[in-house]
């Protein structure tokens, strides 16, 4: 069964090729079947492989499938090979299954769009690339997948390319993540030159053997990989692209910018955890980046009024939680949260898509309202999703994963109280903004009429994801609930066990109660402010200082403004000033030089046969003179 591993990425890739070549000749139905079907089949195979892997694990708890050696020269012989362990099983199943649900949803969501085939073409390529990324056995292949998802992200954000603003959003995403990608490739070079291999398992073993903890080269390598992860996962300081990425169609936001691509950074760090263990300072940086980002994003989410931007910042903050977990060596906890987050975030985005389509394309939540009776499926989906996001106790999967992270942030050997407090504060804010969204969109007065109702292809994924958002957490219960944690046991075969401080406050019932309470308090606050006394809140927000703060948070704490002023404007100014100066001609000079050279050479080709002979003769004479006189 495990030999079928290569089929999992191959199916969506084949879907891409078929849609590329037969573009014009396919009906909507055929495209939908191929596009969604390839991912669906892939999901089936993935689940079968997962079941096989769990019930009869391969030796060493890892399975390696070598397809072929790409090329073999001078010590570098990268193979097209896949590596399956517990972690990649989780990622593979989530990507294919959630991906399939989103593809199914898209067949209805995008049905009136003229770029229908193009959409599924890009989506299939994306799923294939993402699978290559998580299944790659060596870093070169991983990088191939990394670049692939980046390119698809760009293509899909800018999907509605007739509006040039969408293209700019795509371009921004591409450029900002490029900064991270550059760090990543430098990191790969460093790893290869130091350890002479790019295969992940030998690389980790080699690093553990040859590099001392805290040594410069380990720190450099880990830091560079972190740079790449930060860009792809939209953490500070490379997070500005994610809110703007919401310009793409909602299924794109659900799949790429919530469930999968943005978690690539998490995957990378977890995969190369040995390097981060060897560089504790960098790992601490991971935790700090995670915590700061999650707080930053929560505040920003509070002030947004575009429904998708709220969810975008929410994703940013939840990934911050995952980074926090990674930073304190809570490797499995991060993966657990990845899984639950994929479920409830995709759910939220898909439900948001239903709302947006139903209202004829309205994104502003303050123009929504009173939808709970008109769009019941979306309403219940949203409630469950928001509850899961807020980690409401016991009945949501977010509770199990997020509270585990909060626990680990204090209770792990590398945990500390500041991280814990940050995580708790984030939890409070999360509940507030999540239920703010629920109340504003679904309660109160209806502002915009509902013109479209979802049908089964949009409703079914919502139902399935809702169920998963509730039960998905039951695979890892906390200690005080009985210690039923097959998920952790499963992941322990692939990731190091988190070292915890015995008897830490984090593991007491009090701490758990506190964490749960905070989440509920947040919901309560949101209810009070937004349901009971909305008017009072509006009056408060209108006052100068609160208003300025709100605007500040709305604009993402001014990071765009900051980058614009620190990077973009000075570069443009410099370009303007230097025009006609030294620097400009250096670049346009190269182009001019090439053009002049072309003109000169082209003039030499004057069509005259005797000139051709003459040139040959002159060439001969020169060569002879050179040879004879030397």
């Amino acid at each position, binding site marked *: 069964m495990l030999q079928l591993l290569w089929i999992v990425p191959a199916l969506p890739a084949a879907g891409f090729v078929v849609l590329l070549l037969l573009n014009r000749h396919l009906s909507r139905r055929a495209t939908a079947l191929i596009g969604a079907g390839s991912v669906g089949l892939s999901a089936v195979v993935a689940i079968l492989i997962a079941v096989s892997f769990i019930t009869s694990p391969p030796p060493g708890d890892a399975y390696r499938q070598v397809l072929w050696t790409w090329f073999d020269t001078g010590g570098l012989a990268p193979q097209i090979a896949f590596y399956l362990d517990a972690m990649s099983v989780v990622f593979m199943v989530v990507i294919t299954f959630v991906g399939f649900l989103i593809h199914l949803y898209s067949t209805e969501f995008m049905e009136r769009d003229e770029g229908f085939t193009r959409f599924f073409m890009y989506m299939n390529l994306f799923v294939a690339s993402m699978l290559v990324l998580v299944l790659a056995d060596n870093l070169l292949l991983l990088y191939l997948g990394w670049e692939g998802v980046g390119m698809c992200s760009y293509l899909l954000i800018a999907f509605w390319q007739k509006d040039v603003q969408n293209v700019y959003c795509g371009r921004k995403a591409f450029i900002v993540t490029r900064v991270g990608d550059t760090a990543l490739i430098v990191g790969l070079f460093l790893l290869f030159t130091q350890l002479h291999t790019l295969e992940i398992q030998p690389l980790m073993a080699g690093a553990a053997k040859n590099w001392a903890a805290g040594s410069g080269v380990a720190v450099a390598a880990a830091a560079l990989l972190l740079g790449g992860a930060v860009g792809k996962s939209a953490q500070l300081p490379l997070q500005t692209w994610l809110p703007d990425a919401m310009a793409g169609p909602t299924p794109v936001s659900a799949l790429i910018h919530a469930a999968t691509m943005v978690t690539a950074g998490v995957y990378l760090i977890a995969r190369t955890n040995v390097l981060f263990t060897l560089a504790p300072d960098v790992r601490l940086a991971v935790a700090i980046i995670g915590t700061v980002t999650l707080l930053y994003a929560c505040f920003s989410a509070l002030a947004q009024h575009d429904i998708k931007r709220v969810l975008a910042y929410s994703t940013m903050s939840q990934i911050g939680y995952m980074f926090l977990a990674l930073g304190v060596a809570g490797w499995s906890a991060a993966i657990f949260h990845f899984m639950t987050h994929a479920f409830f975030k995709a759910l939220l985005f898909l439900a948001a898509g239903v709302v947006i389509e139903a209202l004829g394309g309205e994104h502003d939540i303050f123009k929504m309202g009173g939808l709970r009776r008109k769009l019941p499926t979306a309403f219940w989906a949203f409630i469950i999703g928001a509850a899961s996001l807020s980690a409401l106790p016991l009945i949501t999967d977010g509770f199990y994963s997020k509270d585990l992270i909060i626990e680990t942030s204090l209770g792990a050997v590398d945990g500390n109280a500041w991280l814990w407090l940050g995580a708790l504060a984030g939890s409070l804010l999360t509940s507030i903004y999540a239920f703010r969204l629920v109340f504003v969109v679904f309660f109160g007065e209806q502002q915009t009429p509902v013109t479209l109702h979802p049908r089964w292809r949009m409703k079914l994924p919502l139902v399935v994801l809702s169920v998963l958002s509730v039960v998905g957490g039951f695979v890892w219960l906390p200690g005080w609930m009985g210690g039923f944690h097959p998920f952790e046991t499963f992941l322990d075969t692939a990731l190091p066990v988190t070292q915890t401080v015995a008897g830490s406050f984090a593991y007491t019932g009090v701490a758990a109660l506190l964490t749960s309470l905070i989440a509920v308090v947040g919901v309560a606050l949101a209810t009070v402010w937004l349901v009971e006394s909305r008017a009072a809140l509006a009056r408060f927000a209108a006052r100068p200082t609160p208003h300025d703060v709100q605007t500040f948070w709305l604009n993402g704490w001014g990071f765009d403004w900051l980058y614009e002023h620190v990077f973009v404007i000075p570069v443009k100014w410099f370009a303007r000033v230097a025009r006609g100066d030294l620097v400009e001609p250096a670049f346009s000079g190269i182009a001019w030089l090439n053009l002049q050279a072309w003109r000169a050479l*082209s003039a030499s*080709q*004057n*069509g*005259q*046969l*005797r000139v051709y*002979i*003459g040139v040959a*003769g002159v060439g001969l004479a020169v060569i002879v003179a050179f040879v004879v006189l030397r």
Partner: protein
Amino acid sequence: MAAVSLDHGLILAAILFVIGFVGLLTRRNLIVALACIEIMLNAAGLAFVVAGARWGSADGQVMFLFVLAMAAAEVAVGLALAIRFRQSLGRLDVDDADEMKG
């Protein structure tokens, strides 16, 4: 028969070769150009014969036969081409053939 020294033979061949080459460069008539190529080829053939004489083997003369045969084939095609050239472009001036350039 008094032997012609290698050097003299090669110099003669070289002179003929250069004459042919210069003719190729300067003359515009296509037939004359073909003739100049012939001169060059025959000069090379002469060089081969002289070289063969120097080494006392028949190789040089055999190569000369090859050269001759090949030159004949080339001229056959070349003259047919010259006829076509005249038909297309009106006259046998090689400089007329400059439609394609750049």
